[in-house]
């Protein structure tokens, strides 16, 4: 088995151990999903204008967010990697015959997948059975479901690529707190975690179009409900790919630079 696949597997096994955390996450996510939907229901009932998204599309959007939270949230962090850098344990990683970017990438990917696998199915099962208007709608069609899966997968890869940049920044800052906070606040808004992007004012929508964040959350979830039509979805997937390549290239370059000047902390 390749080293990258193997570390993926081990990180996955590691992640599966935390059953209680998964259960706690499950209840929290159901709770938050319900609260968000209640707010939207109130807004939609009180609104007189036609809104750019149907209520059931927004409900679906919120539940998909909660189901796949572990895959797409940027603030989800692997303290082990931060530890490696700040206390110098990276020494061991550096004397392995592997490419470090790929190695860490695999670790982060596996952590997210492990995190999500344990809780996504139970949440999906529950929210598919809720009474209207709280119920999760089925995908618009088989083809939009397929496109959604591709978009979600690419969104996950883009999320990991962005988070790699956060980890690499720690080589310079020595503390993950600042970069995590900044990215978390900015990304949550710009990715459409707080508000679906079509509900934002136009000027703000324009900003999100120039950044990678919306391709991780807003895009896949609106493909699911058919709010983004086929052709647009296929174009979107192409843009996701471009972002992915760009982010990985920048990350690889930065990491190589960081490792050249690495100072091992703590003797």
């Amino acid at each position, binding site marked *: *088995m*390749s*080293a990258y*696949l*193997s*570390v993926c597997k*081990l990180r996955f*096994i*590691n992640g599966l*151990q935390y059953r209680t955390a998964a259960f706690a996450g499950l209840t929290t996510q159901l709770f938050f999903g319900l609260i968000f939907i209640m707010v939207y229901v109130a807004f939609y009932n009180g609104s007189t204008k036609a809104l750019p998204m149907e209520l059931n599309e927004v409900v679906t959007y919120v539940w998909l967010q909660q189901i796949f939270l572990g895959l797409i949230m940027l603030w989800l962090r692997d303290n082990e990697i931060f530890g490696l850098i700040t206390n*110098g*344990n990276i*020494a*061991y990683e*550096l*004397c*392995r*015959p*592997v*490419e470090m970017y790929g190695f860490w990438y695999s670790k982060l990917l596996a952590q997210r997948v492990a995190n999500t696998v344990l809780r996504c199915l139970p949440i999906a099962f529950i929210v598919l059975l809720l009474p209207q208007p709280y119920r999760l709608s089925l995908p618009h069609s088989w083809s939009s479901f397929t496109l959604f899966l591709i978009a979600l997968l690419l969104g996950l890869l883009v999320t990991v690529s962005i988070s790699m940049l956060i980890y690499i920044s720690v080589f310079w800052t020595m503390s993950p707190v600042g970069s995590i906070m900044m990215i978390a606040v900015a990304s949550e808004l710009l990715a459409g975690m707080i508000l679906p992007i079509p509900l934002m004012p136009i000027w703000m929508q324009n900003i999100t179009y120039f950044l990678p964040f919306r391709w991780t959350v807003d895009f896949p979830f609106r493909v699911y409900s058919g709010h983004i039509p086929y052709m647009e979805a296929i174009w979107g997937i192409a843009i996701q790919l471009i972002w992915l390549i760009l982010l990985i290239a920048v990350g690889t370059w930065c990491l190589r630079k960081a490792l*050249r000047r*690495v*100072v*091992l902390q*703590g*003797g």
Partner: protein
Amino acid sequence: MIQLEGISKSFKVAERSAGLKQAAKALFVRKHRTVEALSEISFHIPEGEIVGYIGPNGAGKSTTIKVMSGVLVPDKGSCSIMGYTPWKDRAAYVRNIGVVFGQRSQLWWDVPVIDSYELLRDIYKIPQAEYKASLDMLVETLDLHTIIQMPVRQLSLGQRMRCEIAASLLHSPKVLFLDEPTIGLDAVSKIAVRDFIKEINKEKGVTVILTTHDMNDIEALASRILMIGKGTLLYDGSLQELRGRFGTQRTITVDFEPQQHEIFIPGTELLSWTSERAVYSFDHEQLSVAAVIAGISEQVKLLDVAIDTKPIDEIIVQLYKEHQI
């Protein structure tokens, strides 16, 4: 096998005095000092040797190990190990070496040891048969049968260190760097680790470089010592030679029937005196042991005599003192 030529490395260290005022000042003006961790280190180690690398804390031992294992890039100098320059051909080079950093862990904390080993197998692309053989050998000699299935967080320090050493040897490296492998271990584990190092050196011809503060490690293992202080190499030679240089001193401890007055023997130094026991030190090349005992027994009724050579620890302290490090 290993050739270092003029290796230098310096670090920039931020520093300030204690106190709130100084901390506030440091917000605006940072003071940096350049610390010369290594300067002009050169040595040569042939294949199959065990070399003890010693020096006081902060002398640059770990830095040298990190340069040799390709983790740190030195400021200048050249280093060739098995024909590789460690920091340039990192990926190709590290396949051939094993490293143990005694103060760090390479095992995954929450999963059984064997899972970490299997990851290492895939990282080093060790063929299954070879992996099985070297794992069996390591489990046997380091006595890991009962602990290999346990999560690392539940192991004691000694058990963990044995697992760490095994982890560094799964891919059968030709060179092994050990940075304080016996730190914090009890006597039994220390001896187990030492025996094991001796064995792989003898059976597989692995070249071993180890740093340690425990001179017993050096005595048990190393035929050659490199001593470093303040970043420069101060001594390169065998342990016997070192003993020869500083080790002609003997101490003699005598017990006798109660005696009122101190007894002085010409040519010796009286280190301590009570009415029933005295300790003298002398140079046995200038004064024979027999002559000293004869001199004492003329004046008191001897009950017991013990002669000691200077412990290696004290020789090292003397050596450090001589070089003012």
